[in-house]
């Protein structure tokens, strides 16, 4: 088991009433897998089914990126800045 930190924004921040979560996961778990597990806890399907992008340690990564101990994973719902 490794420890990772999760960063939440916008709808997910509201859904979890938190902007950071800490989780234990199996070493090498993909970011996609972590997100899928986490989103099971979100009752609103409109939020749980949002397509996600991922960033680890402030860099975008692909869905199959495998996590290491201490990684900081951001779950990025569709955004529309400007």
């Amino acid at each position, binding site marked *: 088991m490794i420890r990772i930190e999760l960063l939440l*924004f*916008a709808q997910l921040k509201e859904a979890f009433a938190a902007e950071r979560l800490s989780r234990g996961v199996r070493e090498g778990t993909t970011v996609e897998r972590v997100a899928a597990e986490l989103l099971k806890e979100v009752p609103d399907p409109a939020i749980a089914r949002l397509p996600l992008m991922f960033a680890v340690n402030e860099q975008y990564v692909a869905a199959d990126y495998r996590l290491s101990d201490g990684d900081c994973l*951001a779950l990025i*719902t569709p955004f529309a800045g400007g």
Partner: protein
Amino acid sequence: MFITDEPIIVDDTVARARDTRNGALVTFEGVVRREDHGRRVTGIYYDCYRALAERELERIVEDVRTRFTVSVVDVRHRIGEVAAGETSLLVIVTAPHRKAAFDACQAVIDDIKKCVPIWKKERYADHRAKWLSPQDAPRKEA
């Protein structure tokens, strides 16, 4: 720093970009509209993954500087609560010639929309609010 919690002082930021080497200065201001699809808007709350947003903006500015013959490329994006009528985004480009300035300015905005993690929650006069998705933007715009 491209991201700020404070109101964007447009005049000062533009003044710093002016210089006599360049014939063209193009600025874009994104302003929070008072109305959206017929609903009265009081403001927008901008959430932001600040560390990644700063990195991405730095990358975007560098990238545009290599793709276009431009001189100054500067960006300010305000986050937090922004009232209707206030400026949320300022992009400034100077270049020897205007075509490059216009193209680069638009490229910066396109890239911001695609790559910079900033979320908008529109607040309405009836006290409701809604997180906007990219689909809420007009096609190829907003």
